[in-house]
């Protein structure tokens, strides 16, 4: 009898104690800052800038240090990259790059193209917001005009290639175009679609 009475009132005090504890916990969380990051428009910094430096985002090519060795094109398992090299008509000793296309819609961000690059011209950036209205807009033409080919870079011994900071070129390019702007007509043809 006495034991069951104790159990009965024990339940009541237990309820009061646990309610007290539970309510203080939930109220205390209400006074704290929610951890939610309000992507995309209410973040303190751009989210791309908060990612780790080795994040494998969109590919970026610095044509100023590209040697035109085609190592990246060969390394790509799914032919995302298409490069066309040529000889400068005015100076036959000078090789030029007439086309350097990277199809980001096909890229799987494996990083195999970055590995063999001798000068670090092709790099992953931390940019990832690549929504485009047309899938063809995702073919990034790093030689914008095939009529004006870019001369290849010749590495200098004992000196690092003067590569532009990773991400800067890509950001500049993406700022120039809106996600709804129509794709450029692909002449010459870009990487094969499968």
């Amino acid at each position, binding site marked *: 009898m006495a034991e069951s009475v104790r159990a009965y009132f024990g339940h009541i005090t237990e309820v009061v104690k646990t309610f007290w504890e*539970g*309510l203080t916990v939930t109220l205390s969380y209400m*006074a704290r*800052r929610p951890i939610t990051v309000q992507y995309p428009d209410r973040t303190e910094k751009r989210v791309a800038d908060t990612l780790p430096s080795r994040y494998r985002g969109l590919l970026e090519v610095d044509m100023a240090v590209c040697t035109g060795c085609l190592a990246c094109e060969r390394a790509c398992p799914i032919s995302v990259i298409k490069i066309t090299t040529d000889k400068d008509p005015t100076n036959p000793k000078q090789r030029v790059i007439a086309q350097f296309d990277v199809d980001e819609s096909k890229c799987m961000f494996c990083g195999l193209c970055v590995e063999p690059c001798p000068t670090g011209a092709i790099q992953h950036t931390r940019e990832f917001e690549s929504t485009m209205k047309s899938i063809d807009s995702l073919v990034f033409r790093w030689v914008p005009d095939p009529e004006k080919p870019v001369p290849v870079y010749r590495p200098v011994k004992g000196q690092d290639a003067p590569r532009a900071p990773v991400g800067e070129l890509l950001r500049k390019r993406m700022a120039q175009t809106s996600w709804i702007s129509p794709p450029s007509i692909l002449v010459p043809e870009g990487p094969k679609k499968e």
Partner: protein
Amino acid sequence: MKISLALDSTSLTRRYPRLAVLVTLFMAFGLPLGLYVAALAVFPFNRPELLNAAAKEWLGWELAASPYRNLVYTGFLLLVAFIAVNYTAVFGGVSTWVERRVAGRMQSRIGPNRTGAAGFLAWVADAVKMVLKEDTIPASADNLLFRAAPYFSMVGLLLPFVVLPFGESTVVADMNVGVFYVTAVTAFVVVGILVSGWASNSKWALFGGIRGAAQVLSYEIPAGISLMVPVLMAGTLSLQGIVRAQGGCPWEWFVFQNPAATVAFIIAVTSSLAEGNRTPFDLPEAESELVAGYHAEYSGFRLAIFLMVEWANMWIMAGLAVTLFLGGWQIPFVSHAVYESARGSGLVPAPTWFLLQVASMLVFIVKTWALVFFFIWLRWTLPRVRVDQLMTLCWKYLVPGAFLCFIVTLLWLLVVPPMAVKITGILLTVFAAALLVKFLRDTRRNIDRVKGDRVDLSNW
């Protein structure tokens, strides 16, 4: 170019942020304020003799002798009903937004904050979405009952508004059987639940409906008996009479008048939570077991009605508890005679009377919202109870407790002198205030316990 324009202007409010703020302010303050003003302008004059006098004074029309008088009275009542129904709908909507935002912060997230300023228009968007959705009726459902069920619930929600006082004079009708009436008509909600559960012809819905019926029937007993405590203390069943028997200051509220009333208040709130199917007692729609319970088969507008009833019921529960135990609309240090003298003798009361009315409504609304916040807070703190726990709580704890409070109150009223009641009121108020301080300190301690956490109300 044209296409790009169309795509950019997906949302008007995104293009004009100020418009969003204006619309939000209108919906958040203008709409309820308009309803409160309408209630204040219409409710006190909802009496035949006042209408007769007004018709004679302003129109020179002998309404009392006119054959159309019943038509006029009915029209006026429809106006009153229109205000009450719209108030329920708006409150139901706003409280869903409040609930989602509070729940969000309690779970370290934000909640809806995109539609309108601070996401306030989310409830409007939800309502529009609900209305536009297809109203499906299962092929094997009982067609008539299935269609009728939401309206039973809605009637059960709307009827208490007849007697629930918003302010000193802002009440539709001051019935002399107020408390009895409220306990009777709120049971209509469960008729809707049971009918919808049966008519859906689905096992989940049926389980939900039966659970709802069992729960409401059980909890009617402690609820009814604990509501008898303020009735005993006031000596009347009229809600206005019960409020008038209390005072504006906390120690004059019934909840602090004697210890048994404090316990009765807790029992009344608990059992009204159970009757309103609020968490932790939302067994009829336990989503982890019954999908959505009694409204599992509903969609579109009928589902919207069920959800509106569920949320707007919070106002009834909180309003009733405030009226019976927490002093209702009483303004501190303003006695009944002040209202009388402020009214004047004219047909239209003096401006000071209206000011007093506004103040009393404000007191009631603030108290009720505080209790509504408590209900929301409780929902995001406690897990749902099991059916056996529900029944144990009711029959083993609340029913004996309510009877005990009833008897103790009777003895208290007979034995304790008025002076001792006053001292008890002040002592209990001080005790409650001390508990509140301790509670806030404990909350503070919980924040300080985690390294790097602090009180921070940013990130909306």
